[in-house]
């Protein structure tokens, strides 16, 4: 494998198959040969469709899960939310847990594509397209849950401000309405950002396509892009501006989601640490999901030369850092419950660790705090298989965290007479796993039909490598 690491020194260490930086990290950022090779490698996947059998197997499983989702949602629309385990006091249950989990997963995509762009982190280049798509699909999954939870989802448009015949307006002082704006803005901006980035690559696929229908399909998507310098100038300006706009946006979205909880009076929810704690958790789970998706795809399509060990290592480092921010949140929640001297807060915290849902809490601590400490090991960070399992553990952990926040806090409020357990029904589980099916179906279609790595930005990296600026 060719080694590239222009400005930073590279060292060969005996016993290591790869070149390292002075801090002993794998140094290679992109190992693609030239423009032509990188264009072929990425654009041929939608055109030639290699690994047909594996793709079809994965896609079939995803479609089966999607079918299950449709059954679950169909029955929900027919019977109503009573088919779920929700009741008073736990009225939010799985629906809101899943909502917060999915929207958190989306955050890594925006973090990688926008924030790391502004921070000039070049290793983001080969994963940003893919993670932006992940964001879009995660937000689609997330957005469904509050709507399904409405009870009468077909009047969801009452959430939107429009001059209706009832002369009613949404309550703009409510965090639930803020959510509507935050999530819909997030989806729209992510879509624009993703599409703006993919247009030049669709032009590449269009120009490589041999059949008429493919030329038409990709040609329409590419909008007639011809790579003009003036077009690039406007494009790059807008791309940077969108990154700048998406940066505060992504931080605001999960803050607004956390307001759904923090603005309420409930012990376990009413806490000022929630916004930063939720944002850190979102990026944590998002990076875990990126790793869970990138590691198999990298292997399946042979992208080791583009998504290098260095990229994996960096993602693992971000996970370790955000994991500790989340851990700090856990510690502070417990500390503030004790330090506030509030008997209700103390009782809630005691119940969280040692009550009926105590086992969920300790499972959460295990998979979300203890297991990720393996990431201190460089070996784990640079080896796909162990890294995959640590990331999977974090994904489960972050779902459990949202479950604990939503369900455990609700089931144990002020008055003992209103305490009540929540038991998910099979419809709850079917909706959860079904939404994973929806997500995976969209993702499989994306990797099949669209260039999943930014080709033009990979070329930029190669150009920088030629100039010795990488």
């Amino acid at each position, binding site marked *: 494998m060719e080694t590239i690491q222009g400005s930073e020194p590279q060292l060969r260490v005996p016993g290591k198959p790869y070149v390292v930086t002075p801090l002993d990290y794998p140094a290679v950022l992109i190992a693609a040969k030239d*423009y*032509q090779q990188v*264009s072929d490698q990425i654009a041929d996947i939608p055109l030639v469709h290699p690994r047909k059998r594996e793709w079809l197997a994965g896609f079939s499983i995803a479609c089966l899960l999607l079918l299950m989702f449709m059954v679950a949602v169909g029955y929900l629309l027919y019977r109503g939310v009573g088919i779920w385990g929700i009741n008073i006091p736990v009225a939010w249950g799985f629906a809101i847990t899943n909502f917060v989990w999915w929207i958190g997963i989306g955050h890594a995509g925006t973090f990688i594509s926008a924030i790391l762009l502004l921070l000039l982190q070049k290793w983001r280049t080969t994963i940003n397209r893919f993670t932006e798509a992940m964001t879009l699909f995660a937000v689609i999954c997330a957005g469904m849950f509050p709507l399904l939870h409405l009870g009468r989802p077909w009047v969801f448009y009452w959430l939107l*401000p429009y001059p209706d015949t009832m*002369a009613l*307006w949404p*309550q*703009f*002082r409510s*965090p639930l*309405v*803020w959510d509507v*704006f*935050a999530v*819909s*803005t997030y989806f*729209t*901006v992510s879509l*624009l*950002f993703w*599409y*703006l980035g993919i247009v*030049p690559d669709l032009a*590449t696929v*269009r*120009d*490589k396509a041999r059949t008429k229908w493919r030329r038409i399909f990709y*040609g*329409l998507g590419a*909008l*007639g*892009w*011809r*790579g*003009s*310098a*003036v*077009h*690039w*100038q*406007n*494009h*790059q*300006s*807008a791309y940077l*501006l*969108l990154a700048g*706009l*998406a940066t505060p*946006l992504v931080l*605001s979205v999960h803050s*607004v989601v956390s*307001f759904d909880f923090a603005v309420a009076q409930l012990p376990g929810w009413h806490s000022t640490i929630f916004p930063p704690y939720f944002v850190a958790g979102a990026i944590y789970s998002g990076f875990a999901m990126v790793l869970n998706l990138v590691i198999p795809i990298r292997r399946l399509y042979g992208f080791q030369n583009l998504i290098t060990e260095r990229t994996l290592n960096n993602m693992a480092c971000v996970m370790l850092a955000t994991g500790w921010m989340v851990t700090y949140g856990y510690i502070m929640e417990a500390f503030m419950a004790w330090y506030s001297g509030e008997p209700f807060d103390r009782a809630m915290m005691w119940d969280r660790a040692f009550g009926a849902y105590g086992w969920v809490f300790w499972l959460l601590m295990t998979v979300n705090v203890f297991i990720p400490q393996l990431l201190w090991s460089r070996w784990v960070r640079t080896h796909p298989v162990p890294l995959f399992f640590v990331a999977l553990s974090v994904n489960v952990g972050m779902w459990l965290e949202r479950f604990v926040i939503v369900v455990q806090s609700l089931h144990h409020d002020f008055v003992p007479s209103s305490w009540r357990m929540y038991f998910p029904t099979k419809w709850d589980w079917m909706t959860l796993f079904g939404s994973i099916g929806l997500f995976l179906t969209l993702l499989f279609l994306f990797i099949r039909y669209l260039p999943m790595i930014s080709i*033009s*930005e990979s*070329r*930029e990296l190669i*150009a920088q490598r*030629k*100039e010795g600026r990488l």
Partner: protein
Amino acid sequence: MIVEPRTAPPEFPSEAPTAEEEKTLYGLMAEFEEHDQLLEAARRAYAAGYRRMDAFSPFPIEELAEALGRDYTPVPLITLLGGMAGGLGGYFMEWYSMARLYPFNIGGRPHNSWPNFIPITFELTILIASLSAFVAVLVLNRLPRLNHPVFNVPEFRRASIDRFFLCIEMQDPKFDREDTWRFLESLEPISVAEVWDE
């Protein structure tokens, strides 16, 4: 780098296409192998007095648009205006509906309870600014436009893969079929081609 020109040099005026009346010359286009050659070529073309020209590349090249004499893009200003419109419009919507159209006492808060209106004002600022930036790119670039004379050059297919092109348009006051061809040849491209508008 000396490269044998692929296109046979000038039998000026070149063989006119059979359907001359349907085709008009759009310009002359030189093909380069590396992005810095294109940048250098664009600078020299600008220095030679050419103005109506464009460069094409498979990835954005810093300073290329500036080298062609276009150092201003209105995208940031449009985005700023869009963001301001979104923010002011969003706040106005909240104030007008909550304080004027349907005033309602929520927990004793004033009708114009501005801190509660900030999140939506913020989100709408971002939303409209982003939409403005996106629409600005499309409108300023005159996209979507699926056909363009440069696509008639077969080699141009590689402009989206690994080649770099400089096209001097016939509309340029300094354009002269022979002189411009020679000028482009002097830039040591891989080839020079005529671009026909069909």
